[in-house]
């Protein structure tokens, strides 16, 4: 009996030590159910793909309802997942905030995450998250200013709000810090591929030789840039495969950096109430270079300087 007790005690001690050692590094995601509701396709090489990839990276196979440009459709999906008892329901679109205010109080046992936004509405079961996309935008603007030969740089934006505006402003400021003439044009739509394509054509007619853009409709602009030989900087996901010859680098979102924290909190019983931001500092934002693009070490050094400057606060992206 005594021998058995010693073995049990030893086993328990070992289990406690193992749990303590592993606690901070990895979250146990087995049996943790995540659902994502997002406006565009889950493989858009942009906004929606960034969150799906992040959840995948944590070893979770999420339930996904994508293509919900219509907010009412998204609201129905969010409510549906909450009713099904998912542990975390991610409403990945700033336009879903109004719906979440109505839905989240009905499901106090379910945790919701809303992005990109910086408001939890004072609700205990809502997290919000956003990207400091101006940071990576600034870094790529610095590189663009070094690469341009005509001195003219353009950015194709969707609608002047949220994450898109942050990125565009950061990119413009980075490019202007290098002395380039940088301008932005917002198409007025997140989904109008033809308008993005024509905007790129309009930039090409004005001697622009470096372009960037944000949101899922930029695939149209990348195609034009590829046709006429304009260099491209991507954001949200790595866009190299769209045009390997002209994509210089992409700012890639790694939401998993903050999702890991959120999941840990939910497992500890805290279902919301915090705002998270991915940055260059916390490595939620990463500049990924196109390895096949011949980018000089000088320019990479300038990019690294900008990254360090943003991290230590000596460079302001605004």
């Amino acid at each position, binding site marked *: 009996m005594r021998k058995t007790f010693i073995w049990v005690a030893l086993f328990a001690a070992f289990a406690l030590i193992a749990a303590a050692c592993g606690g901070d590094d990895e979250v146990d995601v087995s049996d943790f159910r995540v659902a994502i509701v997002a406006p565009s396709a889950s493989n*858009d090489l942009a906004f929606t793909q960034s969150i799906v990839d992040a959840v995948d990276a944590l070893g979770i196979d999420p339930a996904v309802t994508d293509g919900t440009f219509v907010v009412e459709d998204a609201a129905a999906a969010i409510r549906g997942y909450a009713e099904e008892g998912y542990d975390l329901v991610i409403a990945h679109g700033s336009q879903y905030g109004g719906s979440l205010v109505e839905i989240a109080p009905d499901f106090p046992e379910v945790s919701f995450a809303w992005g990109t936004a910086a408001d939890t509405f004072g609700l205990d079961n809502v997290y919000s998250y956003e990207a400091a996309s101006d940071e990576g935008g600034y870094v790529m603007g610095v590189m663009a200013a070094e690469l341009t030969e005509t001195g003219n740089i353009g950015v194709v934006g969707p609608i002047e709000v949220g994450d898109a505006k942050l990125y565009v402003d950061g990119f413009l400021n980075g490019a202007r810090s290098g002395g380039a003439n940088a301008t932005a044009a917002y198409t007025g739509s997140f989904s*109008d*591929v033809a308008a993005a394509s024509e*905007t790129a054509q309009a930039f090409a*007619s004005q001697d622009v030789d470096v372009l960037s853009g944000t949101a899922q409709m930029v*695939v149209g602009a990348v*195609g034009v840039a590829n046709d006429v030989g304009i260099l491209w900087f991507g954001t949200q996901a790595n866009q190299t495969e769209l045009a390997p010859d002209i994509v210089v680098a992409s700012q890639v979102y790694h939401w998993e950096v903050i999702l890991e924290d959120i999941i840990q909190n939910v497992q500890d019983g805290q279902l919301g109430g915090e705002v998270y931001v991915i940055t260059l500092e916390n490595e939620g934002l990463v500049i990924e270079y196109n390895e096949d693009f011949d980018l000089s070490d000088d320019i990479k050094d300038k990019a690294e300087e900008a990254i360090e400057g943003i991290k230590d606060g000596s460079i302001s992206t605004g």
Partner: protein
Amino acid sequence: MSELFTQAAIVAVVAGGIRLAVPLLVASLGETFGQRSGVLNLGVDGIMLLGAFGGYYAVLQSGSPWLGLLVGIGIGFIMGLVSALMAVTLKAEQGISGIGVYLFGLGFSDLLFQKWVGTPRPIPKFPKLDIPGLSDIPWLGEMFFQHSVVIYLAFAAIPLSMWIINKTTFGMNIRAVGENPEAADSLGVSVSRVRWSTVTIGGTLAGIAGAILAIDLGIFQQNITNAQGFIAIALVYFGAWRPLGIMLGALLYGLVNALVLQMKVLEIIPPDWSDIAAMTPAIITILALVVVATRFSPPSALTKPFTRGA
């Protein structure tokens, strides 16, 4: 503002306006055939989406834009038959059945894209055709004669449509069935056959319009048409059910769109005004539509199913 009046800007606006007009023009011409015979098909956008995906996928697999166009034609033809079955034979309420076709096209094109393709991948576009002797003319050459082959073909479809509608027996039957199906029927014209034909032509052209859109952009994306099919239907009214009027409407829409985008690039329209400016083409089209609507009447039997002896 002076930057807008440079050669580069003017050429870009006109060439861009033509590019933007072409998918609308093709889809509108197709819808005109149906409406002239009395059938409204609100499913144009859905058929465009299916044609766009089918065309894109065929090019992705084969590398041939022409095979993509053929697939777009085939898909449009099949969807035209489906639309005709619902609207003509089953006499379904045309607005509702059209919306059903649209929703099917929206969802199914996205589903197939995600299952068969996944991440957007670029495809070869239609080849450009610089028309010898004309493409070198300063200003005009770049504006009008350095486009992809399908753009010339689309504009060639205008006189062809005019000829079919105004000069052939088939066209006369279309007009008769659209204005007074009972009278046409009493004279031995098969109303069903004419309407099946026109709706199928409309579907085929919508499929072509979608394929042209995706292949000329060199990419497919969920909801790539961005409601262009509905604008095409509005342009049929704008053009007073006449191919020439439709061409003018499509060009107006495309040119205003391209002008607004160029003004944004030149910062004549500041970013704060971008969203409002993006609505300009639609607002101008609606205003013109109001003017046209007061001067022209739609075909008398538009949206009315035909039942012999009813």
